[in-house]
């Protein structure tokens, strides 16, 4: 039988390298919860500060060409309406994908 000594520091480092053990590699659960949180807590029916719909569509389709200023910085994180629009655009994009 071979006895292998486990370096406690290394063991700790490896354990810490899996920060969100039950979430997936894309932190999907976290972002789903965040989405729910924004929808519940950040109503913006008057669409104050929202980027225009074309910019949101561009962000969903070709994010590379959209910058933070176009999106009014972090506005989307404070706007249920923009988040909802993004969700719809995302759904459309997924439906449009070839099988």
């Amino acid at each position, binding site marked *: 039988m071979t006895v292998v000594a486990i370096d406690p520091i290394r063991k700790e480092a490896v354990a810490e390298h899996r920060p969100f053990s039950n*979430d997936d590699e894309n932190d999907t*659960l976290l972002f789903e919860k965040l989405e729910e949180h924004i929808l519940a807590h950040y109503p913006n029916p008057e669409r104050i500060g929202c980027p225009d719909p074309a910019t949101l569509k561009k962000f969903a389709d070709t994010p590379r060409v959209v910058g933070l200023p176009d999106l009014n910085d972090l506005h989307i994180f404070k706007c249920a309406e923009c988040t909802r629009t993004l969700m719809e655009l995302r759904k459309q994009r997924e439906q449009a994908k070839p099988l």
Partner: protein
Amino acid sequence: MPITSPSDLCWKVKFPSGQEWIESTVHAAIKRVWLRAQNTARSQFGDESLAVEMMEVAIEKLVRRMSEGSPADPAEAGHLLLRFYAQEARRRRNANRKLVLLGLSAELPSASVQNPFLPVDSALDLEVILHGTPPEVRMALLLRHSRTRWSEVAEILGTSEASIRVRCQRALKKIRQRLGIGENGT
């Protein structure tokens, strides 16, 4: 704290073209001092993750110094890197000292109060969480919020997946805390 490579720590540094030796020397210097830097952050601030931010500042100073011609030796570069790191730690300690604490926590009202401004408070909280985060981190979080995978986020921002996840880690941790979900998803 996840394992952090020298490349992760250098992700925002622009190495001067034609002086490729600087990058390899800086990487070697980081490897020499990284463990010590983490210990310093833990002992002085009680937060090991601060080591990343302080090290990034130190690296930028080191690269500026090296592009002026010195030092060329990894050991010497390591010493200089530690010195810049210590400077940054000192700067932060001094900044923290300027905070003035008023009253005691026992003086705060203990009863939970129905707060009519809850939505406003939520907005402020998220703004606080993300206040001061670099534009790249903000963009990465927005991209991930639009359900772009981390690998694609990294590609869009021209960096590696590991690097962008390390950059976003602190904000993600705070958001988890704010949303009341544990790291195991509960």
